[in-house]
């Protein structure tokens, strides 16, 4: 077990360091914003107020509330303390709603939409790519251009095309939202059904995007492996193709898993934009509202949550990889 614990320990340490770095960036970057967000919110609250002293008082009140009148390092410690308590501050644009509350209502939409879709797309994409490499001929000739085409279309482009074809023209699925706008979230069948119906378009869009990217990668990987010496040697030995193929695909799969770990952040980013197209009530929409409302606590918290989400996903994939890759297993035997 020593090899494994060393592997996991190393990974864990590395992810903690990354998280700290991401956390720091997350704190510093929005505070470089030239405008004064407190002034913006004060202006909104005090429209119609004529007393200058009154406006001044309101400004101080808000500056105090958001802690923007304190020195930077003090703000930082306050921020760290609050984040660990689960207090992400108060939203500017939806004042006085706490940011944590807004995120709680949107994060699960994104998690439940993206991760199953990416995993399913990864599985289908790899299967198709491996088949294309093995079968060659017509199947390959058909799959490759389609995959290249899909993976060249940006996520939002595919989202709009899907939305217009299946939502507007054919009218099979609703065009926006996560559930019917006339419903209030509850556990009734009507609501659950509405959620399922609204889920389809964004889900299959993300699956398609993932398939396009993975199939191409797996195809080149598998072609490379199929030409490797051990395959030729196995053929000389008279080992059945079916058996060799299993080894080939297992070997081709490993870089694909690493690839998934490395690209999960990019994929999530692209998919967030696709969510916006579908007005899906997830984190993409939250960012959009944050941007529109010049809401920096919300933006900063959302990006932190996205980073954390991607870090955890990457970490899980790398742990799984540790179990699958024979080289990590070999290290364990030392």
């Amino acid at each position, binding site marked *: 077990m020593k090899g494994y614990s060393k592997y996991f320990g190393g990974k864990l340490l590395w992810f903690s360091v990354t998280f700290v770095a991401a956390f720091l960036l997350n704190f510093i*970057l929005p505070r470089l914003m030239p405008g004064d967000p407190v002034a913006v919110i004060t202006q909104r609250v005090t429209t119609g107020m004529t007393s200058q002293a009154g406006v001044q008082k309101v400004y101080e009140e808000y500056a105090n509330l958001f802690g923007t009148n304190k020195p930077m390092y003090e703000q930082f410690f306050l921020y760290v303390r609050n984040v660990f308590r689960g207090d992400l501050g108060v939203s500017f644009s939806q004042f006085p709603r706490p940011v944590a509350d807004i995120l709680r209502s949107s994060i699960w939409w994104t998690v439940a939409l993206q991760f199953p879709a990416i995993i399913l797309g990864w599985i289908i994409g790899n299967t198709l790519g491996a088949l294309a490499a093995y079968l060659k001929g017509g199947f390959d000739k058909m799959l490759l251009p389609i995959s290249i085409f899909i993976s*060249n279309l*940006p996520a939002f482009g595919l989202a709009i095309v899907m939305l217009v074809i299946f939502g507007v023209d054919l009218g099979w699925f609703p065009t926006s939202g996560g559930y019917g706008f006339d419903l209030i979230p509850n556990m009734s069948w009507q609501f659950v059904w509405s959620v399922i119906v609204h889920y389809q378009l964004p889900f299959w869009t993300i699956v398609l995007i993932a398939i396009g990217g993975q199939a191409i990668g797996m195809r080149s990987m598998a072609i490379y492996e199929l030409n490797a010496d051990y395959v030729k040697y196995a053929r000389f030995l008279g080992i059945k193709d079916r058996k060799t193929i299993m080894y080939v695909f297992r070997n081709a799969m490993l870089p694909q898993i690493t690839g998934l770990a490395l690209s999960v952040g990019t994929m999530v*980013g692209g998919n967030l*934009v696709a969510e916006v197209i579908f007005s899906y009530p997830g984190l993409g929409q939250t960012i959009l509202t944050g941007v529109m409302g010049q809401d920096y606590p919300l933006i900063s918290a959302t*990006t932190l949550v996205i*980073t954390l989400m991607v870090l955890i996903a990457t970490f899980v994939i790398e742990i799984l990889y540790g179990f699958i890759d024979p080289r990590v297993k070999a290290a364990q035997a030392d």
Partner: protein
Amino acid sequence: MKHLLQQVFRSPKFLVGFVIFSLLLLFVLIYPLFVPDNPLGIIGQGTFFEPGIYVNAYDVIGTDPRTLMLDNAAANRIASKLSPADRTAMQEYLVAVGVDEEDIELEDTEKLLDLWEAYYDPAARPAGFTAAQRRYYGRLTNNLFGILSLESVVIAAENPETGVMEQIDEVKQSDYVNVNKVANVRWLPLGTDNFGRDVLTQLVSATKTSLQIGLVAGSIATAIGLTLGLIAGYVGGWLDDIIMFITNLFTVIPGIVLLILISFSIGQENRGAVTVAVVIGITSWVWTARAVRAQVVSLRNRDHVNLSKLSGHSVAHIIVNDILPYIASYVIMALILQISSGILAEAGLSILGLGPKTTEVPTLGLMMNWALIYSAHVTNKWWAWVPVIVTIASISFSLNLMNTGLDQVFNPALRED
């Protein structure tokens, strides 16, 4: 070099990508010579005018008419006046008075009118129709036969001295005007957008800006990645450790998060197209750095590099003469991909409301953003968003095709037999 270029252009994938990209570039460069309008100039009062040729109705009156006797003119005239709702209403009436529904063809105006003439009776009171509906049918019929009458339309203007309306012109039903003779004709091949701006002019300008953004972002990303990769790979030691630490850090922290944070911090007023490009560039060098380093590490101990070292060449000389030529093909391919992903990144940012400021130049992302905000995609205003997506997709498709083609030339293992 010549041989290499020949080989590259013999790759069908590269060639197709190159041709698509060149055509696009050519169009972007030539179009402004013919239509030098301001791409953000608002020409239409109203939103989403359909694509087509807009002929100035005022100028048509003054233009010399020619008489053409065309058989189907009257039918066309009626067909264009009959809305789908009117047709359905006519069908309802005809069914009510006993016409078989199978015999009625809604699209065929001539047959529909024949049926109408045969069966419509203003005095009849078929069951199931209210008085208001009967009056509607009466009006509809009057309108239809009004169009069919052969009377001409009189055009009158007020005499400024007497204040009396005087006839200045008469337009007959058989009058035609040559479009070339009309003083003001504007062809809007892609209609106008939500602000009333010419979509095609805007699209051309947007494509140009987006390509520039891609080029700037790609060059910055490749330059940073190449420099860091070369230093880390060739110099090694603690520099390598530090650079790899930073690179690994930014591999895991999603690029979009940094993009969002930086773009948001810069603020809407300060975000020009170039700023956005620079931001995209400095957040997307990670992959190039990793790959360049990996290649340089494998090159570092080759014989020719060692020989160069023994001959006493400087580090810079070795890097330029013995390392760069071996990774040049890779760097060019990386640059192509970075350009394409830079354009996509700008579009994604714009959709999130973090694109360049909206007052200076249009970009493909901004056009997409406007189309989405004004729901062009849900309301069937295809001309506001389809051309944008097609342009983005063909840029990205052609660049990737070129990249794949190059890849096959430089990595023979990937070549198809």
